[in-house]
């Protein structure tokens, strides 16, 4: 283990800002990369299921 | 007299350029104006200018080329000429090469001829003129060839001009780097054969490969 305390780990020998800023920005991009397809999938499934239901109703009437 | 479709198209495009000189003169004016902006905006000191002259002229040449590229295929797509090329069964490879040649004749060649004038305005060192001419002579055909691919890709897009610049500028970087460096090195009395050689290699590569991409891109505009 390179660091003796948690505070030392956060400080990163004075370079904490740069290290954590990098990791933070990366986490944001990664999170967006994961969330985007998951949300799109949910929306797609919902929309298409709705469309199917609509079409069924339409067919039943006709 | 039959020139074949490729020859006839080159002749037709040159005739068109002669009838509408604005189309190729405006980018040249732009070339001149962009170069005039640098002393005004940065520093008119001749010592400073002579250092950046080569780079400025090349950046201006690159932008002026982009301006004239947008029109390269647009009219042909819109009026049905492109359809007729494909219907003729002649090689689209040769056709793309021919179109790039025409583009160079009305953009790269006049730029090259005008460049010494800009060199004077920007106090280009006397030793650098030869390098400037050579680099433009070898480099601007590469710009036309690569640009023709972008023009073919965006010919059917409504506001294609801006998109074209976005696509093509990153691809122009190697030409810019080597050409500007050739002029700079000639200015400080160093050898610049290596850079010109690299530009020549780029030209050979572009002349062989880009017509394939242009031809494929042109076919895209027809499948609508």
């Amino acid at each position, binding site marked *: 283990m390179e660091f003796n305390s948690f505070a030392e780990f956060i400080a990163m020998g004075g370079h904490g800002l740069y290290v954590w800023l990098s990791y933070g920005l990366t986490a944001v991009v990664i999170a967006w990369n994961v969330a985007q397809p998951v949300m799109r999938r949910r929306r797609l499934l919902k929309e298409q299921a709705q469309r*199917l239901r609509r079409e069924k109703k339409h067919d039943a009437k006709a | 007299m039959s020139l074949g479709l490729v020859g006839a198209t080159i002749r037709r495009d040159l005739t068109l350029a002669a009838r509408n000189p604005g189309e190729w003169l405006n980018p040249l004016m732009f070339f001149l104006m962009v170069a005039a902006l640098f002393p005004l905006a940065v520093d008119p000191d001749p010592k400073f200018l002579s250092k950046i002259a080569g780079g400025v002229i090349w950046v201006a040449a690159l932008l002026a080329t982009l301006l004239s590229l947008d029109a390269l295929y647009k009219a042909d797509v819109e009026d049905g000429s492109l359809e007729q090329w494909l219907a003729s069964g002649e090689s689209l490879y040769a056709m793309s090469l021919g179109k790039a040649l025409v583009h160079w004749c009305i953009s790269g060649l006049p730029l090259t001829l005008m460049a010494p004038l800009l060199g004077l305005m920007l106090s280009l060192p006397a030793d650098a003129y030869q390098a400037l001419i050579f680099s433009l002579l070898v480099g601007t055909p590469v710009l036309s060839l690569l640009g023709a691919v972008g023009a073919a*890709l965006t010919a059917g897009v409504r506001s294609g001009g801006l998109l074209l610049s976005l696509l093509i500028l990153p691809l122009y970087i190697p030409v810019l780097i080597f050409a500007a460096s050739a002029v700079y090195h000639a200015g400080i009395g160093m050898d610049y054969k290596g850079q010109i050689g690299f530009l020549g290699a780029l030209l050979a590569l572009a002349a062989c490969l880009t017509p394939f991409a242009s031809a494929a891109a042109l076919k895209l505009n027809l499948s609508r």
Partner: protein
Amino acid sequence: MWQWLKRLYHRLGSPKWFYEITAKWIPWLAIISVVGCVTGLVLGLLYAPADYLQGNSFRIIYIHVPAAILAQSAFMMMAIAGAVYLIWKMKMAAWVAKVIAPIGAGFCLIALFTGAIWGKPTWGTWWVWDARLTSMLLLLFLYFGVMALQQAMDSEESGFKAAAILALVGLVNIPIIKYSVEWWNTLHQPATLKLTEKPSMHPDMLIPLLIMIVTTYVFFALLVILRTRNEILWHERKRSWVKDILEP
């Protein structure tokens, strides 16, 4: 062997097969990504020794380098998928190429951000025209170009084709751009302190880096699969097998 390849090709070309098989892969890929990421970061952030020149700021390497490597190979994969689409008209390939572009651009952005941030303690300034950063910036422009072109076309199909052609032209250009930028860089800035490229790295530093690189590829595969599955759902929405998924 040839028969097997042919069968694989046909299967890959079938959206339904891809959709069903990847459903089984997703949990595994996700687990490997998380485990690899945690291991790599714990080793890299806690156990790797500090760099003798750069101190602890070098720990940015564990995201910067994997992101940069991935951004470049993603472009290559995108161009290859595009070529497969152009040559064999395999729709799956077009969808894969389409979904790679934003992911690759995302990793490119990560590499640029982290490179700039890393530059501050190392060079004392946020941005230096370092050869690697510069060619990464140009790669980002290429990604933007491909995405913009794809969206600008009237029909989705010609968008795919145009983007594939541009990606191939870009692929040929990437080594030329890299070479010219490196040459230009050595000309203008001899002997600057480079961000990466150590003559020899201590194994304690190197192993977490290798773990992170492999993990990034796995994670990339996961992202591509997730997005491709959405493309499949959208494009095949009118087929019966998708309808069965929608209302079991």
